[in-house]
């Protein structure tokens, strides 16, 4: 159990380090910040350092012959940025988009893309130790993008690794 915990924390830290370059596993634990958002009844979080901006949903230009979760591209001040439907990526069907839906523009590695979510809810500041591992009993390879769980006041928040999710 102890080992699992360590592995999980390393995972979470890796997710944090992604795209930002701050906090790493061997420095004194600094609080990590996440942006949390909702998708239906579920709450998820991503590393705040990866987030470039948050904007309302606008129509995209579809890209031909792409997986369903690729909603197309939009013009972000001159850059062509693809938008992904996170709900569809999780296999929960397509989001019925309204202007109230939110696109979170993120930088992952060299690339910039947007993820479509229902709403942004909070900024979470947590100690690394508070990020728990995802239980491994039902963990298959395809779920490597779940990098940890935070127990917030209002319930569990799942930390996502965007790199794993859209690699």
């Amino acid at each position, binding site marked *: 159990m102890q080992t699992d915990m360590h592995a999980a924390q390393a995972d979470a830290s890796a997710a944090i380090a992604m795209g930002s370059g701050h906090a790493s596993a061997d420095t004194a634990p600094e609080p990590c910040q996440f942006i949390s958002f909702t998708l239906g009844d579920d709450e998820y979080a991503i590393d705040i350092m990866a987030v470039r901006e948050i904007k309302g949903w606008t129509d995209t230009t579809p890209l*031909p012959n792409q997986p369903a979760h690729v909603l197309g591209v939009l013009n972000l001040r001159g850059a062509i940025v693809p938008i992904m439907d996170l709900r569809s990526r999780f296999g929960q069907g397509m989001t019925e988009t309204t202007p109230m839906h939110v696109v979170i523009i993120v930088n992952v590695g060299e690339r910039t893309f947007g993820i479509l979510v229902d709403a942004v809810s909070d900024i979470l500041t947590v100690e690394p130790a508070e990020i728990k591992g995802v239980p491994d009993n039902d963990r298959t390879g395809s779920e490597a993008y779940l990098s940890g769980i935070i127990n917030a006041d209002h319930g569990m928040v799942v930390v996502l690794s965007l790199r794993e999710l859209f690699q």
Partner: protein
Amino acid sequence: MSSDGSSGSDFERFRVTFFEECNEILADLEVHLTQLQEEALDVEGLNAVFRAAHSIKAGAGAFGFTRLVTFTHSFEALLDKLRDGQIEQSPHIADVLIRGGDILAELVTAAQEEREVAADFTAPILAEIAEVMDEGGGAAAVASAAAAAVGPASAADVEPNGPRSWQITLAPGPDLFKNATEPLLLIRELQGLGDLIVRCNSDALPTLRRMDPELSYLGWVFTLESTCTRQDIQEVFEFVDDTCSIDIEDVTGRTPRATTSQEEEDGFGLFEPLESDSAPEAGMAQAEGGQPAPAPPVGAARAPAAAAAGAPASKPAAASSIRVELNRIDRLVNTVGELVITQAMLSQELGELADYLGRQPIAGQEALAALTRELQECVMAIRMQPVKSVFARMPRLVRDLSGKLGKKINLRMSGEHTEVDKTIIEELADPLTHMIRNSIDHGMEMPADRVAVGKPEEGTIELSAAHVGGNIVISVSDDGAGINRERVLRKAMEKGIVPADAVLSDHEIDELIFAPGFSTADQVTDISGRGVGMDVVRRNIMGIGGRIQVTSHPARGTRFNLLIPLTLAVLDGMIVAVGNQRYILPITSIVESFRPDPTQLRFLDDRTQLVSIRGEFIRIIKLCDLFHVPDAVHDPARGLVVLVEVAGGGKVGIVVDELIGQQQIVIKSLNDNFDPVEGISGATILGNGKVALILDIEQLAIMRADVSSGRLPPDPGPAALVAAE
């Protein structure tokens, strides 16, 4: 050595500048050496070659590239003798110089890539240089060059040990003091060698008001009576060799010359125009030329610049251009691209607003549009460069190859000053090289064969460039044997590129040389390679949005035409509507558009539809099917067929709902943030701020072929295609 006291990044920056300059200098050198091949160079030409070598030497010295310094020194010594007329120009010397130029380029590349060249790499050419100098210039000259060169060719010091008279002319460069050199120490050292008479040459000293106290203006002529060797004297000047012109002459038995030898100092600006009034100006121009660069603690990066600026041909006008990093210009181009899009958006909104208010268009709107357009043109013009830089490499290629193959070929070039975007120029070098190789290897006959068919012994290859509309047309034509259609067709059949029973028109056969994996050379030569020839050329040209055509006449020759857009950043596009989507078709590939009559249409099978126009049968591509666009017009007879040209001169018809309009569009990469999408070459932003995709016609044609060749499941409905991802 030069990094002392300057920060690493500064040093790196100067280093980059040095190599940029080297490459420009080498290109220039190439031009002159090419000319040398044709005829003896005049003094100006020799000076230019000398300057080129000298500039490289000066910079190389500053950066401590000793191999480069050693070699350029010898090269320069030979040129010096040529300038002096001590050696007559001859084809042999021209050859030595040309090969020397090659070696020089190789050494520069090696230095740039920080790799070592073989220890004996320069030895043969150095030996040759020493030899030709020996023939023409007397033993002293050879000893001078060879000893200074410290090359393997370095002749033994033949001078006897008796007392000799030396005349030493020292003309320091203007940056002498910046390199912390104290001439007095040199003089004292010389004094230590024997009896020394020193004369100071202060002719270049400007008036006090115009003098820059940090530059050196004085030169010296020493007469030394000593038993020392030339080597001993050279050692005294070892550390100032890069920044000063030093001429050591054995004048034993001669009356010491009263004045400095003008010729010896040619190329060092400061003292050269002694008799002219312009001397102070030259000095000042030099100083000014050096100023804009941030002054490095040592003369490092300034050395090449100063050496170049100090050349006799340089005029104050040399400062009329500046060197700018390409990525800064790219940023400017991008920003202006944004501006163009924003202006289009604004214009659209304002137009609607004016309509709504029932008023005249808002003032200034048209002026803004015009200014924006002009700004964009100006910015694009910055990146425009003459194709000369690519063309200049070709004479060498022709000479080398024709020599190797024993063919006689004259290369004629025209339109070298035609300008095209820098990014495109870079992409042109390989295809052009290959096409010319191809012409020489396959097209051109042996001299005897030419005479036999009544052609002049010497073949001609013409390379030309010209602007035609928004494109540049580059053509390579030869007066060789033309494409051997019989052989091409046989090869194509053997290789299974066309069916064995195919009946092809002459033009179609000619086009086969662009087929992947096709090579007609019976033997694989190191000249035309392994049949990755013309198909790669075509791919490269298409990669930059261009097209290539070939026309050939048996026994009269072959002509390749390249039609290339002027820039990669903008494109003349036709906006087409398919359902509620907007796509861009490059105007250059559009032949025509029409609404076919139902009688012109016919299905071959359930997915392949043809349209017949003026006796041609053309395959139809339905974007709505390929891209699964909902609510699009399916029946070509109810929409429009846009006829586009694809590789190989074939055509396909693309079905669209309607044409929206023609527009200059700014090309954006899709691949910065996403994987390549089949059938799409890029994207652009329309006036309404929406993204529109640019169609990749070549891929569309192949996509269709893939589907019909059954690589996908037999019945790929839209759902199945999506699932196949």
